[in-house]
C-alpha cells in the first residue's frame, strides 16, 4: 500500500497518522505492522526532528509487486 500511494523514498515518506488516513486502520495496528516490515527490510523509518516517517524500501517494492509479475 505504501508503494501504491507513492511513499517510496525519504522525500515522500509518511507519518503513522497519514498512513492511518489512507488505510482507515488504527495507528496502533499500523505501528505493529510497520515494525514487522522494518525487521524484514521492507520498510524504512526516517526520524527527523523527532518526527517519525515511513517509506517502502527497494526490497519491499520488489516483494510487494512480486504477486503481479
Amino acid at each position, binding site marked *: 500500500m505504501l508503494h501504491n500511494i507513492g*511513499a517510496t523514498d525519504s522525500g515522500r515518506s509518511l507519518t503513522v497518522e497519514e498512513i492511518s488516513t489512507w488505510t482507515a486502520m488504527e495507528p496502533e495496528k499500523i505501528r505493529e505492522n510497520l515494525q514487522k516490515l522494518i525487521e524484514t527490510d521492507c520498510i524504512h523509518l526516517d526520524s527527523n526532528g523527532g518526527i517519525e516517517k515511513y517509506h517502502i524500501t527497494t*526490497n519491499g517494492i520488489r516483494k510487494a*509487486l*512480486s504477486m*503481479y*509479475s
Partner: protein
Amino acid sequence: MRICMLTWEFPPRIVGGIARHCLGLAKALAKEDHDLHVVTLEFPGTPSFEDVDGVKVHRVRVDLGHPNFITWTFIFNHFIEKEVAVLSRDVEFDIVHIHDWLTAPAGISSKRYLDKPLVSTVHSTENGRTQGLHNRDSYLIDGLEWWMTYEAKKIIICSSSMKGELEHHFRVPSDKIAVIPNAIDVSKYRRHVDQRAVKRRFGIGPYERLVLFVGRLVPQKGVEYLIRAVPNIIRQNGEVRIFITGDGWSKNYLEDLARATGYADRIRFLGFISDSELVELTVSADALVIPSVYEPFGIVALEGMAAGVPVVAADVGGLAEIVERDRTGVTVYTRNPESIAWGVNRVLSDSRYSERLIQNAKKKVEEVYSWEAVAKRTVEVYEEACRA
C-alpha cells in the same frame, strides 16, 4: 525503426523476468541502429532519463497514488501515456510495444493517439499465474490481458505452450501470434569465477555441494516442492546446501516449511541479490533446480545452461521446450518432491552425466537463445504489424 517500448519494470526496477527481457531486447535493437525509447516507472535512486547502451530510458514519476493496486496501475498508465505524448512531439514512432497487461491501457491509448500499430508481448497470463481466476482482481487482470491481445496487430509470446494458452483462453487467431523465445547475455557467464572462493564467501564448506533456486518466491515457482524434496536429497547426498535466492510474498510460508523439514540449517534464503553475485553463485552451483508449476518460458533455465550448471527442471510450459531430457538437462514431474529429489540426486551422483548435460546445454544456448537473434525476429514482427 523508431520504437516506443512501455514496461512497468526496467532495471534496476526488477520484479520478475520482464525487466531483464526488456533490457536485453532493447539493447539488441539499439545495437542494430533502431531508435529505441523505453518508457517505464521511476525507482528510488535512478535518473528520470538515461542512455543505457544506446537505449533511451525515460522514467516516469507517478505523482498520484491509490492504495488499491489495480487503481494504481491505471494511474501510472496515465502518467506513462502523458510521457509518450510528450516524446511524440520530437519522435515520430513507427510502433508501440507493450509488455504484459500492466502497461496495456497506456499502450492502447498511445496506439490510438499516435495512429501506429501496437505489438503486445504476453509474458504470462493471470489464468496461468494463479492457476485459475479466483477473485475479482484476477478477473479484471484477465480482461485487461484479453484487451491487449485484441488491440494488438501482432502478439509476441515466448513458447509454443503459451501460443496454445492464448489461442484457447483468449481465442486469439493463430496468425496473429509470433513465437519468439527469450534470450540471455551469455557473455556474463564467460568471466572467470573462483568457485571455491564464492562458496567460502557464502559459508559453504569445500566438500559441500550447492543446489540453487533462483526466482520469485510465489506459488507458481513451485519452491515448496523443492523444499519438500530436501530430506530425500540429503539422505542420498549428505553434504548438500540448498540456497534459495529471490523474494516474494510466499517467503514466510516457505521459511516455515523449511523449518518443518528438520533441515533448516541446510536451507538458506538469500533474498534478492545483485546480478553480479547471482552470476557467481550460479556458476558455482552443482545443480540449478527450477520446480515451477507454471512457466511460460523459464529464462533462469537458460542462465543455468549458460553458466555451466546442470539444470533440473519441471516438465511444464516453456521449460519443457528448453530443457531436453537427458540432453541439455534433467526434466522432472511438476509438484512432485520425489521426482525433484530424483533429478537432483542424479546430477549430483553422476559427474560424467552432468558434464555431458553441461556441454550440450552451453552449445544450445549460444546457438539458439541470443538477443541478436531475438531482436532480428522482433523487427520482422514489427514490420509485419506495420504492413498489416
